[in-house]
């Protein structure tokens, strides 16, 4: 089988201002990121003939989406041959995977992909919102709101108001089966924090110790506050181009070596066959089915950490360690440091960098492969990176290479 995603390449990236509560128009943030990505690729808006985003114009929690396809299409007066926005896809990066398919099929030549959030401003100072409780949640929210349809109907009546609860139960099962501990899991958060120090845009950059972590208030066991990512405002964009034209652009193209979009188990937060992992197991398996490269060939890994445990699960699923071995693998943090076996979440991830919801990982993977990581650059001229996003029933990943 020929992996046709190799006809696609990443050719430019852009990111808006990122902050805890910027109070700015989310569409303006989105357009800042989009225009930055177009410029970065050496293109103009006239070159963009494809547009893709996650989740598009969608209700969700307050600030969950800053702009849809139509908003950006019209604001930039794009002339599109192909566009796609929506939430029913293999995780946040599913929109980018679709863009790869679109250029491989010749539907478009340069697809602008974006994701914008303004959860920091939208959710205000009242703390992170549960789902369906405040008038802005799925289904309308508010007292008197009745949950309908999976998953809400079968989670909210049981006072499980957040993915924090749902993912915590997967982590708990992992702890039970494999002996994983909070002291081990902590290293996802501690690693993110030390790397955030090298990212001027990161939300939390001050040092954090294991004692700080263990002393933090609990959210949903085994998760404490530092196992949960930090809502923020910001937008991220990238250009997916047809590989044969990518060579003539400003930057060395980053070829899409393989993608993973599989979900072979039940699409559910609580009905997946293996309660120690999630949909990402299948997405990761598919990625390696489509390439001759091996986990040992990967120079840098940017893996979704909406909750710390998700990054650990991606590490296992992608084969950087064995199933159930994630705890001992990350303990102490040496293997996942910038000069470790597999440098992880080099920009601070979402735990310390801010919840840019998946696209921050792909942005950082590109930055690292272009050698522009600055104080957080992985040494040794990295040439292969994996970017992955999603937990629960969401999961999608891309393997990128620089020739």
């Amino acid at each position, binding site marked *: 089988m020929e992996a046709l995603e190799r006809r696609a390449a990443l050719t430019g990236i852009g990111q808006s201002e990122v902050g805890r509560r910027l109070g700015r128009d989310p569409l303006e943030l989105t357009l800042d990121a989009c225009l930055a990505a177009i410029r970065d690729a050496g293109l103009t808006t006239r070159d963009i003939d494809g547009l893709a985003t996650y989740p598009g114009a969608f209700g969700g929690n307050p600030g969950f989406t800053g702009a849809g396809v139509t908003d950006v299409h019209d604001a930039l007066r794009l002339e599109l041959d192909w566009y796609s926005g929506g939430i029913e896809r293999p995780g946040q990066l599913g929109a980018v995977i679709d863009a790869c398919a679109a250029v491989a099929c010749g539907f478009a030549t340069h697809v602008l992909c974006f994701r914008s959030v303004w959860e920091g401003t939208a959710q205000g100072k009242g703390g992170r919102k549960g789902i369906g409780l405040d008038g802005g949640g799925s289904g309308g929210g508010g007292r008197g709101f009745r949950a309908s349809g999976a998953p809400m109907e*079968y989670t909210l*009546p049981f*006072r499980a108001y957040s993915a924090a609860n*749902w993912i915590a139960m*997967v982590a708990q099962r992992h702890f039970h089966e494999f002996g994983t501990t909070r002291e081990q899991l902590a290293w996802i958060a501690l690693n993110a924090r030390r790397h955030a120090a090298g990212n001027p845009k990161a939300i939390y950059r001050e040092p954090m110790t294991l004692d700080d972590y263990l002393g933090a208030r609990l959210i949903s066991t085994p998760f404490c506050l530092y196992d949960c990512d930090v809502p923020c405002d910001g937008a991220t964009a990238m250009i997916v181009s047809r590989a044969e034209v990518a060579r003539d652009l400003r930057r060395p193209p980053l070829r899409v070596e393989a993608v993973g979009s599989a979900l072979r188990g039940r699409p559910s937060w609580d009905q997946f*066959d293996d309660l120690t992992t999630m949909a990402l197991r299948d997405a990761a398996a598919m990625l390696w089915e489509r390439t001759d490269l091996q986990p040992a060939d990967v120079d840098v890994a940017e893996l979704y950490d909406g909750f710390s445990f998700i990054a650990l699960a991606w590490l296992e699923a992608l084969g950087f360690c064995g199933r159930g071995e994630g705890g001992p693998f990350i303990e102490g943090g040496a293997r996942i440091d910038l000069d470790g076996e597999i440098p992880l979440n080099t920009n601070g991830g979402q735990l310390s960098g801010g919840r840019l919801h998946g696209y921050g990982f792909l942005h950082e993977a590109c930055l690292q492969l272009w050698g522009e990581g600055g104080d957080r650059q992985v040494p040794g001229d990295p040439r292969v990176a994996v970017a992955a996003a999603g937990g629960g029933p969401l999961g999608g990943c891309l393997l990128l290479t620089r020739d």
Partner: protein
Amino acid sequence: MAEAPEKSFRVLPRVTAANEHFWRGGAEGVLRFLRCGDCGTWVHPPSPICPSCHGKGLTPEAVSGLGTVATWTLNHQPWVPASDHPYAIAIVELDEQSGLRLMTNVVGCAAEAVHIGMRVRVVFEEHDDVWIPLFEPVEA
């Protein structure tokens, strides 16, 4: 079966013809799931067809109400004001079929006592027109 003692605020489900058997079975003290009349597969959440044989002869049937905690978490975060933090959220697997499970709460014991492998039985908490299926430890 006894009603769980303290009632906290809950987001209630919208009851439909498709899910009424699940959310109102507690009125008769039983937990019901759809079961395929052709191949016997239990189905949750409800579906118009059997995922195993694609038969359409699904009808609600009561389970024993006995099961095992497959995993759990203690919720400490006050998503809504409540006096009983932390409380236990769990996924319980019913005795009737491997993989027949639901998210629920474990009540009737200290939250800290909840553990994987704990044997539990269903109890119902009545709210308006629905009966929320919760689980309490089976006495040893």
